[in-house]
């Protein structure tokens, strides 16, 4: 068990900087998820923590000890790879026990430890098989077993579920969460899947172009994203955005946008003017054209059984997604209105930073009560 601390960690290849001055403190026993679009540097950051690649600048400490110059094998970490990276010519039992062989353990001691881990991960009936005789999910379990058997201080997962089909992904997600509950080891988990991040993480680290956009609990990221980037990344389907023109002066602005949008907002704490509005699909509802805050043409409805997504074109290049609980009876190519509550409105300035407004405080307050209750 150990904390992990990064102090202005940077990594560059030649002139190409992929990680820029990342500061991060991960508490002992915490489950932290790195998310971000591909190429944001999340896997690189994980490999820097593992010691698989050296940092260009900055310091890393694990369990309070500086490990910046310590090789991967001495950092007390275990790494689970996206490709599982099992040794193809060894049986499952030897794959799990291989690291113990070099520790000078006796054969029966290794066997006992392997059996214990295999039982925990429900692969004990597969010990004599080779990796190629296993399914993807079984391979993933063996890879986790290989990490587990060394009793690491910190677990590092690099997109461990992205090669699995969606059913299995869900199942393994729950098992990894359970594993964390059981052993309580610090875990750092990289994924590009925001659903995985939301369900697994104690805290999520959102990365963009090698810098941390925001660190926070899943609820914080959902309710009070710092920027348009985070707002767009957390939540599925993603938040609807529309450009607006602001008139007036701080703190009171009149906003005009697509689909006949006209709003009066009172921005607090920041003097810059709103340039974009955002509303989540689940905060929107379909109403009569004149009853909504904006209106557009209903283009299509996706029916997922338990929920439905309506696609409404509010401007030639802007489509809003609306989550509706029951299948709408409205015909396609009909004009519909979209309604939302004031507290569900997000405002972003020209640089993409979120602006607080009068009603958004209510939402933040409600979210923190919700979180405390949980």
């Amino acid at each position, binding site marked *: 068990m150990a904390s992990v601390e990064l102090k202005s960690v940077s990594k560059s290849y030649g002139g190409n900087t992929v990680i820029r001055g990342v500061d991060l403190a991960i508490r002992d026993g915490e489950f932290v998820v790195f998310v971000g679009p591909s190429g944001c540097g999340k896997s690189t950051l994980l490999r820097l923590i593992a010691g698989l690649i050296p940092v260009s600048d900055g310091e890393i400490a694990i369990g309070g000890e500086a490990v910046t110059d310590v*090789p991967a*094998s001495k950092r007390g970490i275990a*790494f689970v*790879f996206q*490709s599982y990276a099992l*040794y*193809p010519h060894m049986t499952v039992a030897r794959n799990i026990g*291989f*690291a113990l062989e070099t520790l000078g353990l006796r054969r029966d001691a290794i066997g006992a430890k392997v059996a214990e881990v295999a039982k925990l991960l429900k692969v004990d009936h597969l010990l004599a098989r080779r990796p190629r005789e296993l399914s993807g999910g079984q391979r993933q379990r063996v890879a986790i077993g290989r990490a587990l058997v*060394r009793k690491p201080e910190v677990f590092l997962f690099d997109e461990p579920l992205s090669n699995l089909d969606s059913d299995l992904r869900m199942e393994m997600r729950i098992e990894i969460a359970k594993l964390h509950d059981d052993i309580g080891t610090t875990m750092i988990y990289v994924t590009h899947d925001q659903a995985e991040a939301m369900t697994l993480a104690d805290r999520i680290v959102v990365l963009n172009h090698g810098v941390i956009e925001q660190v926070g609990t899943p609820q914080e990221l959902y309710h009070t994203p710092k920027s348009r980037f985070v707002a767009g990344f957390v939540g599925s389907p993603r938040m609807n955005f529309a450009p607006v023109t602001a008139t007036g002066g701080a703190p009171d602005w009149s906003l005009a946008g697509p689909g006949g949008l006209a709003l009066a907002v009172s921005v607090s704490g920041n003097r810059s003017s709103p340039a974009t509005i955002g509303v989540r699909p689940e905060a929107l509802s379909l109403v009569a054209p004149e009853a909504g805050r904006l209106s557009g043409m209903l283009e299509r409805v996706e029916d997922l059984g338990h929920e439905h997504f309506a696609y409404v074109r509010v401007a030639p290049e802007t489509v809003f997604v609306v989550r509706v609980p029951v299948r709408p009876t409205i015909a396609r190519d009909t004009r519909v209105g979209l309604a939302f509550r004031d507290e569900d409105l997000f405002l972003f300035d020209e640089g993409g930073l979120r602006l607080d407004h009068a009603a958004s405080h209510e939402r933040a307050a409600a979210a923190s009560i919700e979180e405390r209750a949980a």
Partner: protein
Amino acid sequence: MSVKLARADRRAAWLFMAPMIVAMLVVAVWPLARTFYFSFTDAYLDDPTNFSLVGIDNFLEVLDDHTWWIAVRNTLVFTAISVAIETALGLAIALLINQAIPGRGLVRAAILVPWAIPVVVATKIWEWMLNDQFGVLNQMLIALGLVDHGIAWTASGTLIMGVVIFIDVWMTTPFMVLLILAGLQMIPGEIMEAAEVDGIPAWKRFWSITLPLLKPAIGVAVLFRVLDALRMFDLAYVLAASSEQVMTVSIYARNRLISFQELGIGSAASTWVFLLVAFIAILVIGVLRLDRAAGEAA
């Protein structure tokens, strides 16, 4: 699939294979069959139309010839030693240039040069460098004070086999390097990283991971080289013509066939060469389990 479609598919398959089958018949099956047939006759090269069947007499005569057994021994010695050195050297060099060292591309290109030079040319170059009076190698040895007069590398009985092996190693190690390097690059990097995180020491990573995963690639490379070495002709012939010290089975067959004009006995010797190569090839495939190794790497 309907019967009609299946038949059309089969017809297309035969159509595509036809040129290959014809080529094989003309360049492989026909000459082989002719050789095999002549090996049962007493034909001479000056008049191959005039002969009579003599049964297996030719095969027995080859086995009875002391020179044939010298050639067999030379061939086996040459094959075993040269392939062993080439494999060890090839593995070492492949491991080296698989590392991300600066100028790796240049090294890779440079290492291929000996392999790109025709055997006869390379042999002639080395023959000159090894010349006892004018050779650059002897000049260097004398200059360094290691010897006081030039060594006759290609004249001495024991040295010349060493020279043949040396030139072969120089020429064909690049081939080994290339095949083993290809095998090395097939090993996923994440497996090595996993071993690194697991704290496996470098020697054990090599012994327990790299080497077993390389086995199929090394096996194929060794098989190719063994087959090539067993029928080696040009190198020894250019260097020493028909000297018994480095005479290979191919040179023996060629001498009986061309120098002595004995079409029947030459053909029988050629057939023995074919059988010898086939036998050792099967042995190598069996020992290295190459037939199974293909699935192993997946």
